[in-house]
């Protein structure tokens, strides 16, 4: 079932085209990561589909129009910052969300337990750390057990521990079978949590599909030896030189399909090289993203 269909959605702020004829379809159960650098139109897109920003043109439809004007009651969403009444505590703020959604909730113990705020439930929102505010925002999205969850840069501004906590929480939520849409510029986050990815740049959709599809199968090796010159010569005899990059203390190269670390180590040894460092890895989404945005920017 289609949860969200966006058709040719556009928004400009003066001369800046924030979102440019964006079209996409999100099916039920998808964990979609919307990736893009700052200013790529992620938040504007979410703002439009959440009715807080007016589009200049284009349309979108939630749940095939099943819920009419009140479709957002079936969605739990945070946009940019956690937004709550600063003088109210967690319980009181969640009660307001429940009242808006028309949900009769008998306390918020489960939610507060899940987000780890039970001990601070009676503290005013303004006394919370950013991580706690972010967790409360995520908790609020769960009220009424909505079909869709939307998160906008959920780990923005958090310290490493906060990032790890939120990420774990998101992974748990994603595993519940809900449809999740998450905007982020942290590729690792999307790679770890999402099943699908949409890449935006300057308001345009560059690519969209399953994470595995967007990520190609290229594999990379990072190698070092005591004689780096000999290592480079050997690699150049074997691999296209344009795929070899000098990094800080090691060489990085794209390796032909099917090679394992053991095979590369053996090959190097047979060619008189004792490797002091060897790591074989898949291509990072980050590299894919940069490559993709470069390629498509070149096409413009």
């Amino acid at each position: 079932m289609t949860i969200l269909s966006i058709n040719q959605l556009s928004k400009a702020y003066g001369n800046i085209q924030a979102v440019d004829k964006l079209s996409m379809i999100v099916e039920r159960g998808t964990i979609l990561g919307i990736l893009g650098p700052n200013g790529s139109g992620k938040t504007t897109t979410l703002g439009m589909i959440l009715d807080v920003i007016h589009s200049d043109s284009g349309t979108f439809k939630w749940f095939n129009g099943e819920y009419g004007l009140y479709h957002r009651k079936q969605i739990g969403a945070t946009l940019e910052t956690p937004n709550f009444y600063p003088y109210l505590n967690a319980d009181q703020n969640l009660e307001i969300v429940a009242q808006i959604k028309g949900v009769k909730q008998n306390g918020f113990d489960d939610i507060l337990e899940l987000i780890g705020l039970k001990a601070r439930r009676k503290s005013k929102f303004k006394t919370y750390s950013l991580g706690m505010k972010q967790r409360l925002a995520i908790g609020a999205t769960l009220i009424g057990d909505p079909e869709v969850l939307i998160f906008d840069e959920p780990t923005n501004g958090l310290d490493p521990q906060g990032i790890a906590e939120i990420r774990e929480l998101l992974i748990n939520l994603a595993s519940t079978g809900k449809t999740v849409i998450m905007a982020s510029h942290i590729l690792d986050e999307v790679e770890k949590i999402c099943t699908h990815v949409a890449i935006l740049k300057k308001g345009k959709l560059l690519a969209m599909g399953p994470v595995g599809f967007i990520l190609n199968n290229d594999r990379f090796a990072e190698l070092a030896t005591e004689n780096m010159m000999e290592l480079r010569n050997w690699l150049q005899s074997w691999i296209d030189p344009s795929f070899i990059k000098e990094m800080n203390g090691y060489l990085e190269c794209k390796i032909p399909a099917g090679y394992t670390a053991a095979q590369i180590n053996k090959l190097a040894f047979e060619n008189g090289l004792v490797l002091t460092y060897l790591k074989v890895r898949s291509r990072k989404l980050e590299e894919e993203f940069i490559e993709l945005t470069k390629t498509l920017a070149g096409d413009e």
Partner: protein
Amino acid sequence: MNKLTNLITDVRHSIHLEWLKYKNNTLARIIIGVFTVAFSFVILYGKRIIPNVSPPLPGLDTYYTFPTVWDYQGHIGNWLVCVLFGFLMVHFVTGEISAKTMRQGIINGQTRWDFYKAKFLVIVSLATYATAIYIISSLIIGIWHTPDMYFSLIFDTNNLVGRFWLMSVGYLTLAFLIAMTFRTSGISVIFYFGYVFVIEFIFRMIQLYFFRNKAILFWPENSIEDLVPNPLYKLPSFWMEKEWGFSPVLSSWESIITSSFYISMMLLLAWRLFKRRDI
């Protein structure tokens, strides 16, 4: 019948939501508390400090006895609603904008109309509360001070209760419109008080300089203020009417019609602004 039930449910839901938002707001509690206490005690404190005067000025007794207590209490309420509740309304709206809770409310499932309607109900609720305090305090002060009372004397209010309610709605709507327009608390407060006390007065004086006619009375703030005018105006009004050819205060029906028109226009404008803007 079904529609009426839905409407009542809807109104109750909106009022409950606003109650949840503001019941623990310290500033709201302080302002409403000060309003309630001041409404009852300003006039009584005045009794201790204002000397009794000789005719043609009204004697002190008229401040506290029926039916004129309605006029004097109404005038005190005029100031209190304008200053305290006007400020509170600005605080409510700009607070929602700055904390982005207005935006989050829409994200959570409210329609813009739901939000707007809920804020209108806040206006109506505050105006009704102010009117209730006006009635209660006037009755208590009047009963306490009037020696010979009879029913028709007590309730000889000349529609002042209804006019007081409309006046409260007027000030609160003006504050609401200004807050929705400027969106930041500081600028909205400055503009609200600036408009009520300075800007409109300057425009009226400029108009008066060039065109000395009754049109100077039909400005928004003035028509709202004249719903419950200063009772002490009655005396100079006589002389000014002779001099200018018109009274400096609108008649009750003129102020009711004019302020109702402005309230409708302000509500419409606030809605159009809110509907069109990104939030």
